[in-house]
């Protein structure tokens, strides 16, 4: 019965959306602001990766909201799970196999490096703070699988998180105080396609990378903690 009702409901929604999709044909140029971003993006922001310039510069406020959402979820998750407790010393942990252990120890630094590379070059090549941060967090996920008993220090991760977010906000406020708008790109744009270009974009993306990495690692750490 319940399944039938849900099916009928879904068919109605689907019909509506198909009707509305007729106005949006596939694969034909119809972009308006997107077109402007592509044509003027490099000139206005200095980043060769237009997606990065949209994410950090044109729609930077969304990104601020986005890292806030991740922060909210991390805080809410630890509030729901209850206070953080370290694993007791005598507790039995199933040791991982030799291959897993060695593989994880080998991969962990490489993944950290790849993550850092991706968010440092966010304004030049595909990738950026979120992707790099997620890769760093998966390095920590591997570490939890492979090296028993190793945990990140909670205080360190909180300090990294807070500093990452504050960098973003402080850069925004500097833009505001020197007479322009919030999040105004006040640093020199530099030569496109070099590492030191695009003003505040790489700075913000590096801050986001650290923040997202430590936050996601913290989320995994909280969830993996067995005892409450």
């Amino acid at each position: 019965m319940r399944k039938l009702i849900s099916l009928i409901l879904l068919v109605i929604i689907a019909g509506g959306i198909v009707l509305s999709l007729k106005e949006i044909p596939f694969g034909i140029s119809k972009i308006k602001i997107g077109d402007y971003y592509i044509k003027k993006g490099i000139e206005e922001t200095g980043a060769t990766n237009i997606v990065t310039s949209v994410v950090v510069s044109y729609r930077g406020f969304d990104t601020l909201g986005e890292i806030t959402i991740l922060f909210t979820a991390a805080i809410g998750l630890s509030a729901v799970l209850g206070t953080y407790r370290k694993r007791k010393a005598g507790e039995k942990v199933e040791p991982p196999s030799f291959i897993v252990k060695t593989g994880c120890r080998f991969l962990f630094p490489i993944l950290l490096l790849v993550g850092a590379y991706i968010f440092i070059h966010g304004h030049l090549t595909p990738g950026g703070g979120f992707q790099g941060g997620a890769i760093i967090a998966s390095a920590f996920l591997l570490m939890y699988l492979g090296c028993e008993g190793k945990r990140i220090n909670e205080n360190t991760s909180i300090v990294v998180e807070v500093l990452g977010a504050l960098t973003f906000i402080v850069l925004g406020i500097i833009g505001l105080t020197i007479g322009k708008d919030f999040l105004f790109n006040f640093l020199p744009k530099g030569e496109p396609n070099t590492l030191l270009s695009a003003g505040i974009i790489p700075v913000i993306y590096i801050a986001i990378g650290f923040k997202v990495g430590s936050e996601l690692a913290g989320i995994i750490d909280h969830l993996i903690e067995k005892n409450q």
Partner: protein
Amino acid sequence: MNFLSEYIYYIGAFSLIFIGLFIVLAKKNLIKVIIGLSIVDTGINLFLITLGYIRGGTAPVFSKPGLKAENMVDPVPQALVLTAIVIGVAVLALALTLAIKLYKHYGTLNLRKIKEQKW
């Protein structure tokens, strides 16, 4: 065939959305419901990216010289989807935390069996 290749991305995206919504509406197990939510998220992301695609276009990155601006796909949906993916992860992590906590309280994940509160 022509029709299929024209609309295959839309078909894929909306199939995911509707399968996901069906899981959310019809399944009883909380973890299953959350899996449904994640499939809905993926479907929506695919839909948004498809919106910005231009046939024969290139990625909006001026990584090498000779790329023409006219041929690039729309960067805005890609930026939106980056945001949407992170929002999705946040909601999923919170939902799974609540599921773990719910299991601790009730010993079950069956939503029909959890009826402490009347609707």
